[in-house]
């Protein structure tokens, strides 16, 4: 079936079977490979994207059902400028192998948007993103820092 997806601000038209997930549409049809396939079952969070501004698992979303704009980790930054949360992840070393990082950052941005600042709130909010390297402590630090930086960035706009 022919569908249109708005991915990182660009409308993409493609022809997919109804069973194709948003994750496989992004990765295999559109070359958007930031979202990762860690489990394909909604159990790890590596495929997390924003749909209509909220975090969602692209592996459990059928591409044909997506009607709202999709943002992936690629959509956060420009070639010149990292998103504050991306910078915070790099600065806090909130990653090791990096495979879960695109999903972590999409959840982290959502956590910051909600103004989460308490470590326990952040830990719960981020618990849908597994990190086998176990960078959890630095992820929490990065989310706190990235959130306050995001706030500052907003304030200067």
């Amino acid at each position, binding site marked *: 079936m022919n569908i249109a997806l708005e991915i990182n601000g660009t409308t993409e038209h493609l022809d997919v079977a109804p069973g194709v997930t948003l994750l496989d549409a992004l990765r295999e049809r559109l070359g958007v490979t930031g979202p990762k396939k860690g489990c394909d079952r909604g159990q790890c969070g590596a495929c997390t994207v924003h749909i209509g501004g909220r975090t969602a698992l692209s592996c*459990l979303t059928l591409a044909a*059902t997506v009607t709202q704009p999709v943002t992936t980790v690629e959509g956060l930054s420009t070639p010149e400028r990292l998103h504050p949360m991306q910078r915070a992840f790099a600065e806090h070393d909130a990653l090791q192998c990096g495979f879960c990082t695109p999903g972590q950052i999409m959840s982290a941005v959502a956590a910051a948007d909600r103004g989460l600042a308490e470590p326990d709130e952040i830990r719960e909010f981020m618990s849908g993103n597994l990190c086998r390297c176990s960078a959890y402590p630095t992820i929490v630090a990065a989310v706190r820092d990235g959130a306050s930086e995001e706030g500052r960035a907003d304030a200067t706009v």
Partner: protein
Amino acid sequence: MRQFDITAPTTIDDAVDGRHTFLAGGTTLVDLMKLDVLTPPRVADINALPLRGIGADEGGHSDNGNAGHGLRIGALERMSDVAEHPDVPPAVRRALTLSASQQLRNMATIGGNLLQRTRCGYFRDTTMPCNKRTPGSGCSALGGNNRGHAVLGTSDHCVATHASDLAVALVALDAEVRLVGSDGARTTPLADFYRTPGDTPEIETGLRDGELTTDVVVPHPERAAHSTYVKVRDRQSYEFALCSVAASLDVRDGVVVDARIAAGGVGTIPWRLPGVEAALRGEPATESAFAAAAEVATHGATPLTHNGFKVPLLRRTLVRALLELAEGSTR
């Protein structure tokens, strides 16, 4: 995954033609379709249907006198939105907050949550016998890894645990579901909606062919203002319950006046505990009285090879939930 057709009806009448499997958040259906556990030929994406809103019940199709005294939640409301709504009773909010992950809560709907399928690993594996998936094929869990399985409401045919936290909280609070089908609308208490497996474990609810959940109604939500949900599991988040308890408690002058209690993670359906409620009424709100009442909870429990611990764990979780309410704290 089998080939299927998908449509996106915009009216309820179009949706309830009896030919389609409904897709809302997709967190159960897409998962199980990818595993070939569910193989619907026709899927209806119902997200465009007008089944949203959280607020005072306008009556809907209710004929039981609760109209106007309830909190109505549209079936397509997302778990995360309901979890954060101030009018929703604490037990429901906590049950939702402690469910799944933020991403899944953003996707999954209230209606879909109540119809989610069991997490039994044999149900999810099409190479294994499972009476719920393939009636008559046998139950692999009886002789398999059944640590997560039920101890209440089981049969020789199925011991799969009901997975929903939300349903446990709603059953404790006497919630109702409103359904609409091609024959019209009806309302049923959620507690009556679920079916224990018996010898037909493939039948999990009283849902009729083509019927669609439109709303959930929590009657007298003010009575549930003093309620809680305690969930016990192996990790602190993103996991189904080994055991959970939803409870509301009315204590006056140190004596229990009323209690509503249901348990999760231990039953083949959300497990209301009327015996415990009765045993609590008139008793002092003390740990020893709670522990005595909790004994009633596990009468008739039938533990399997690996889940015997759920029997004492249910009693302990009950005491913990009741103490939390009695002490007015949420530790």
